[in-house]
């Protein structure tokens, strides 16, 4: 059963994918994050539309200036100061120089478009299919393979239950931890982020423990 790639090829492949993404988009990708956003597409669409209205940060600065009137107890702005004054109508003497820098940092902090997350998930499917077909591993079947049968269960109903429960744990756990093996494991650990290193160590450790239990005990 060794028609899989040798370890160095796999390492190079995964690294290439991650590095390419980071360079090209200046963001990090995560499959569980993509799932989360796609599954909550209604909310996401709403937020995206709201974000799309802000074509330029002058708009926001203006809105903020208008809103400064109330909650902060600052003196209300004169209405005359407002209408489409190209932004700067705010607190006296604000530095008008930052916007270029500010807008670029703002764009950096906005999430990738929702459609691109759908694209990511769909193309994983396509990529996996191409790999399966080209390596001759594609096979339509209704079981999880010999390994699963021996290690977990061989009864179809138990298999479905185990897969579903496992899936729920994966879904809940990844979102609670804020990432999965791609988000935390590749992108986060690659950036040496403390959260990601902790998360990766814990989920890998737990998986090792549970796998040993399944293998030896059950």
């Amino acid at each position, binding site marked *: 059963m060794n028609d*899989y*790639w040798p*370890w*160095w090829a*796999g*390492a*190079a*492949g995964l*690294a290439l*994918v991650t*590095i390419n993404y980071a*360079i090209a*988009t200046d*963001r990090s*990708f995560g499959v*569980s994050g993509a799932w989360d956003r796609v599954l*909550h597409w209604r909310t996401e669409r709403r937020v995206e539309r709201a974000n799309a209205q802000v074509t330029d940060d002058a708009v926001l600065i203006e809105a903020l200036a208008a809103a400064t009137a109330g909650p902060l107890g600052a003196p209300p702005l004169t209405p005359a100061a407002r209408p489409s004054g190209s932004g700067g109508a705010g607190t006296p003497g604000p530095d008008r120089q930052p916007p270029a820098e500010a807008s670029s940092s703002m*764009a950096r902090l906005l999430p990738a478009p929702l459609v*691109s997350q759908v694209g*990511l998930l769909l193309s994983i*499917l*396509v*990529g*996996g299919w*191409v*790999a*399966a077909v080209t390596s001759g591993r594609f096979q339509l079947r209704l*079981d*999880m393979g010999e*390994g*699963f049968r021996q290690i977990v269960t061989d009864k179809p109903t138990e298999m479905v239950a185990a*897969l579903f*429960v*496992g*899936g729920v744990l*994966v879904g*809940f*756990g990844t979102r*609670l*931890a*804020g990432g*999965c*093996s*791609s988000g*935390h494991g*590749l*992108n*986060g650990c690659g*950036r*040496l*982020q*403390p*959260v990601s290193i*902790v*998360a990766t160590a*814990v989920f890998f450790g*737990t998986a*090792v423990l549970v796998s*040993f239990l399944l*293998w030896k005990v059950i």
Partner: protein
Amino acid sequence: MRTRGAILIVNIITGLALGFTVANIGFGDYAELNRMFTFQDLRMFLSFAGAVAIIVVAFAVLRVRRVPGRIHAGVVPGAVLFGTGWAISGGCPAIPIVQVASGCMPALVTLAGIAVGIRLCRWANTRYLRIDSGSCAR
């Protein structure tokens, strides 16, 4: 300036390459996965660890910025749940997609479970947990 079209294309390329690579490493194969987690076969583990090592070096050289985030209350419990689920079902969120793509239909059940779990987590977070992940931008 990065346009949306560019981001979309990069995501598609990434997805294709990721799916292809993950499938060819063998993460979709439950037996291989169990052998990795029980250290009977270090090939896949080395793939993962080697990738991380390469990425660390590359990101350090390229000075890739970090993403905000802190070790919040959900990290460790979440990772424990995820690790358990991964060992049982053989799926981190990308793997069942690859399994389905190679014709393994039961992985659809795993996907359904993941969808339920993710929605459950958002619901629980909104209602009860309210975890501060340390970022407004996610």
